[in-house]
């Protein structure tokens, strides 16, 4: 994967820089982005609203182009600090979070809007800082997590890693917390990727 030099203050990429970065993508980086997009979309479930991984990649790229043209909107790639593929992945994560928040708010708003005595409509949800997910989505996600864990009933290392991932722990933290070697961790990740396809 191409590395970016971290040289002081961020230099925001232009459209030409993004064009060039796309053309310079190696086949391996193409694969990384393809898989990452698929995993992200899979993780969103119904919140992806039928968008494909390809559409997700396109949306993230467009956000970067918008950011290149306008300092106030879009995503601004600091090309001297973050490699292109990493930034595109960060952009996908950011977009996913926005989709998630927007969908949760939209659906719950429709169920929690009330009319005041003065005839004004007020969203009860807008007064709630952290809305809860939809009940059916929760059940689907619960079942999906259970099924994944079930796949690794006889693989304690992979099982532990999955449990840690559930809690948002990162690789180095997991290695340290559970006393795994780096190679054991990577081998277990490979086993998980093999069974949990993107």
């Amino acid at each position, binding site marked *: 994967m191409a590395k970016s030099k971290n040289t002081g203050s961020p230099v925001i990429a232009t459209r030409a820089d993004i064009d060039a970065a796309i053309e310079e*993508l190696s086949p391996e980086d*193409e694969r990384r982005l393809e898989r990452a997009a698929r*995993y992200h979309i899979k993780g969103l479930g119904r919140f992806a609203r039928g968008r494909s991984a390809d559409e997700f990649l396109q949306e993230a790229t467009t956000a970067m182009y918008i950011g290149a043209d306008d300092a106030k909107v879009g995503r601004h790639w600091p090309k001297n600090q973050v490699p292109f593929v990493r930034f595109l992945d960060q952009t996908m994560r950011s977009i996913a979070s926005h989709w998630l928040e927007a969908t949760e708010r939209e659906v719950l708003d429709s169920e929690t809007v009330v009319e005041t005595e003065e005839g004004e409509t007020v969203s009860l949800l807008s007064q709630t800082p952290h809305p809860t997910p939809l009940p059916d989505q929760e059940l689907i996600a619960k079942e999906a997590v259970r099924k994944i864990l079930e796949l690794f009933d006889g693989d304690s290392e992979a099982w532990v890693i999955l449990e840690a991932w559930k809690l948002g722990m990162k690789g180095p933290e997991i290695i340290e917390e559970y006393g795994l070697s780096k190679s054991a961790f990577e081998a277990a990740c490979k086993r998980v990727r093999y069974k949990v396809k993107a």
Partner: protein
Amino acid sequence: MAKSTKHSEEYRSIMNSLAETVFEMTDKEILEEYGAEPPAKTKDILRSAAKAYGQSKLHAAKLKREQAIQEIRSHPFEIPSTPEERRLLLENVLASQLAKGLGELTAQFRELGSIPDSDVESTLRQLDILGVLQKFFETSK
């Protein structure tokens, strides 16, 4: 360890972590694990996003230009009734002190006689939008 309360967040966290592992793989590992699959089309996908974005920018620019043209065409102003009078007015405006700041325009209309009547009219409209005509009439009174 922090306790996560939402299953959908846990599921998403697992998928995000799996995505992360892909970036941590070496090129060799990528090749070993996915080498048998058809090549990824990511470059084409990103290129199509670039193209679509470029086209949307072009479309927006065209739209803006059309709006500007429409604004000029629909701009209400009192125009001399004949082409000759309009040409004379433009000639006088360009010859006046007011045209000093419009160097490009005066250069363009140096050969006013060869300019079509329609261009004379649209130029007068533009000058009116810029407030030049109004100033011209005021100073000519």
